[in-house]
């Protein structure tokens, strides 16, 4: 134990340029707490207690050995040694900060997205709010499912929030988006209220699809679901991109799929046609490491999903960092808008829940693994820590937002559990669009039901 502490303290000293052995380890850790992403409650408390303007970062570069010892996530923070441009104003919050973000792995691309991302205070708060809202909605859905108020399939998105938030930050509402069944996050970012989302999950008439679709079939303008058949949404997305090209409107279609769907044949058919016709389609693989209960190594001969487009350029992106996702998506969308054809993005991400609510999610992965991701790579925590350590917002602000968001979600859940179910008269409606009313056979010949558009 003592040896381990010594190793740790030596490493921390090298990182920060302090003299090895000059302080005891506990003193060292406290001193270094502003540089290190400590997510335990105790660390938060101590950090808040000593809230002062952060010291200017040391100019010295890190030794490579220390870099290797440092956790991957430390790189992501506006940490010491990183070259950071900061506008400082000690009286107010910092209005804008430029952060270093991870360089993307590239496939058939000379250059990738920028390695720096600008974040304004407003943007930060907005991304935080979006991600936290998705998080809380998903947890509420978990709760409602366990109470049997939500039935059937429920595939939760918690852990992956940076993907939905980052993508939406990079595109405009006039762009298009389609995804698979883990869709609640995107339904929200594409503009559906959480009331309508939760009420759709509980199967009420106030749901976005009037209770007729459920978890996997929610729609909004320029959002095409919510698709239950694995991989089927990928050709659909390319078709939407074809419509954009056909109309010459400079819009793109973001077409999402998972690491499991990446092995579907129809994806390769779609890649071929999208490349052939230069469709403005951003294909995005959300690689959360598991296709249901099957780890990627057991399903794919090549887990380099960003290369699977073969002749289509690709990039692999840290999907837990909302800024990385944003910059990469912007880069990808620009690529398409410039008429260069489709592009494939792999977002490396993680889901805390199992595949769906019927999967505990611990038979094929360890609780330790889940906990490690939660503590080191949680997208919401990463953003909050970044903003706090750069004085872009206060902990109180975040707390207030959390309380507000919880209340909104509770209110929405209240609506979703009290709204009535759709009336039986609606049973046969919406079979056809723009059609005169027609008769529908019921369960027996005397049951003659009516269907209107």
């Amino acid at each position, binding site marked *: 134990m003592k040896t381990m502490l010594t190793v740790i303290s030596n490493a921390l000293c090298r990182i920060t340029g302090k003299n090895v052995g000059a302080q005891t380890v506990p003193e060292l850790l406290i001193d270094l707490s502003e540089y290190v992403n400590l997510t335990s409650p105790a660390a938060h408390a101590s950090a808040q207690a000593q809230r002062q303007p952060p010291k200017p970062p040391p100019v010295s570069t890190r030794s490579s050995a220390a870099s290797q010892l440092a956790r991957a996530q430390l790189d992501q923070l506006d940490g010491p040694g990183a070259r950071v441009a900061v506008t400082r104003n000690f009286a107010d919050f910092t209005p804008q900060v430029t952060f270093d973000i991870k360089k993307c792995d590239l496939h058939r691309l000379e250059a990738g997205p920028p390695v720096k991302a600008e974040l304004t205070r407003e943007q930060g708060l907005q991304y935080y709010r979006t991600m936290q809202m998705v998080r809380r909605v998903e947890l509420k859905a978990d709760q409602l499912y366990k109470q049997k108020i939500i039935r059937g399939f429920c595939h939760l998105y918690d852990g992956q929030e940076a993907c939905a938030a980052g993508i939406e930050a990079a595109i405009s509402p006039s762009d*298009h988006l*389609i995804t698979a069944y883990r869709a609640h996050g995107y339904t929200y970012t594409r503009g559906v209220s959480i009331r309508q989302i939760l009420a759709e999950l509980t199967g009420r008439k106030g749901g*976005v*699809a*009037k*209770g*007729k*679709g459920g978890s996997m*079939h929610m*729609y*909004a303008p320029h959002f*095409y*679901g919510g*698709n*239950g*058949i694995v991989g*089927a949404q*990928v*050709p*659909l*997305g*390319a*078709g*939407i*991109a*074809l*419509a*954009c090209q*056909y109309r010459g409107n400079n819009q793109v*279609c973001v077409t999402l799929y998972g690491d499991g769907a990446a092995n579907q*044949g*129809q994806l390769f*058919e*779609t890649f*071929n*046609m999208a490349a*052939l*016709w230069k469709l403005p389609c951003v294909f995005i693989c959300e690689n959360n490491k598991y296709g249901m209960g099957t780890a990627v190594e057991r399903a794919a001969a090549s887990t380099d999903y960003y290369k699977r487009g073969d002749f289509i350029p690709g990039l692999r992106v840290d999907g837990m960092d909302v800024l990385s996702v944003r910059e990469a998506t912007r880069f990808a969308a620009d690529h398409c808008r410039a008429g260069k054809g489709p592009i494939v993005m792999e977002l490396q991400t993680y889901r805390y829940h199992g595949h769906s609510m019927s999967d505990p999610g611990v038979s094929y992965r360890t609780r330790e693994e889940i906990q490690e991701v939660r503590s080191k790579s949680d997208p919401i925590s990463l953003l909050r820590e970044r903003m706090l350590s750069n004085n872009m917002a206060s902990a109180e602000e975040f707390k207030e937002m959390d309380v507000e968001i919880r209340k909104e979600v509770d209110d929405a859940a209240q609506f979703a559990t009290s709204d009535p179910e759709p009336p039986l008269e*609606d049973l046969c*409606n*919406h*079979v*056809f*669009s*723009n*059609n005169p009313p*027609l008769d*529908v056979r019921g369960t027996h*010949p005397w049951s003659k039901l009516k269907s209107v*558009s």
Partner: protein
Amino acid sequence: SWTPSRKHQRTSGPVEVTVRDALNQAMDEELERDERVFLMGEEVAQYDGAYKVSRGLWKKYGDKRIIDTPISEMGFAGIAVGAAMAGLRPICEFMTFNFSMQAIDQVINSAAKTYYMSAGLQPVPIVFRGPNGASAGVAAQHSQCFAAWYAHCPGLKVVSPWNSEDAKGLLKSAIRDDNPVVFLENELMYGVPFEMSEDSQSKDFTIPIGKAKIERQGNHVTLVSHSRFVGHCLDAAAVLAKEGIECEVINLRTIRPMDVESIETSVMKTNHLVTVEGGWPQFGVGAEICARVMEGSAFNFLDAPVTRVTGVDIPMPYAKILEDHSLPQVKDIIFSVKKTLNV
């Protein structure tokens, strides 16, 4: 320069047009009328269509509106459905409907069900068209009739034209329809000329989907059929007329939604019903007609059980003599009518 087949008539009156040309005219007119309409499929553009149905269209409308696809049914059917979701009006051609099986998930789960699942938020205005059923000598994998499979599914309209007027009027209606329509053509009918009325030559001529047509009036027995076998029924009716048996021949035109009312009205007059189709008997179009007639008002007017004349319940063989005996012949219809009438 070549233009799609159209006989420009200065004088009024009917004109002879093959089913192929009627389909071509329908697509040409709808492409011209609405710039959201486009055609995609294998060989539809530069090859002029595997069966020449889209002859001349690529030359007239170009790459943007007439799109050659690779051999990727599931992929391009999905692309077509996506384009429809985004507001275009695609015509997705399957070289034959046998190949639509590779794409059937996109037809059913992405196209047919979406308007319902979205409670009206997302319409899918698409036409899937191509030859269906048996051809000549193409053997088992290329001869299946898909009328029953597609007509089983709510959210789809399924249309099966017989003659040139049917082909043109129904295809125009299908393209203008805001819903997914499966349009089942027949390869053996493409080259057959039919007289087309003056009305049917108008650019606004459409035939409503969901309405059957009485091709021949009669009092003794009702023959109900679709596609190529309507012609067989009319041939049988001509022979039977010489023996004093007058058949009423109904051309369904639409399989789903089926015009059961026309069948019932006819049965209430003739008291006898024979269905004729090229597809297999089990769970087929004729089976559905039997069930519907039994459940409805016409049952009490039947003097005999309904008879189904269908394809033989086997995969289609290749040898000509075997193939000929795998599908209903005119003599089978005549025999069945006489059995039903007990004469």
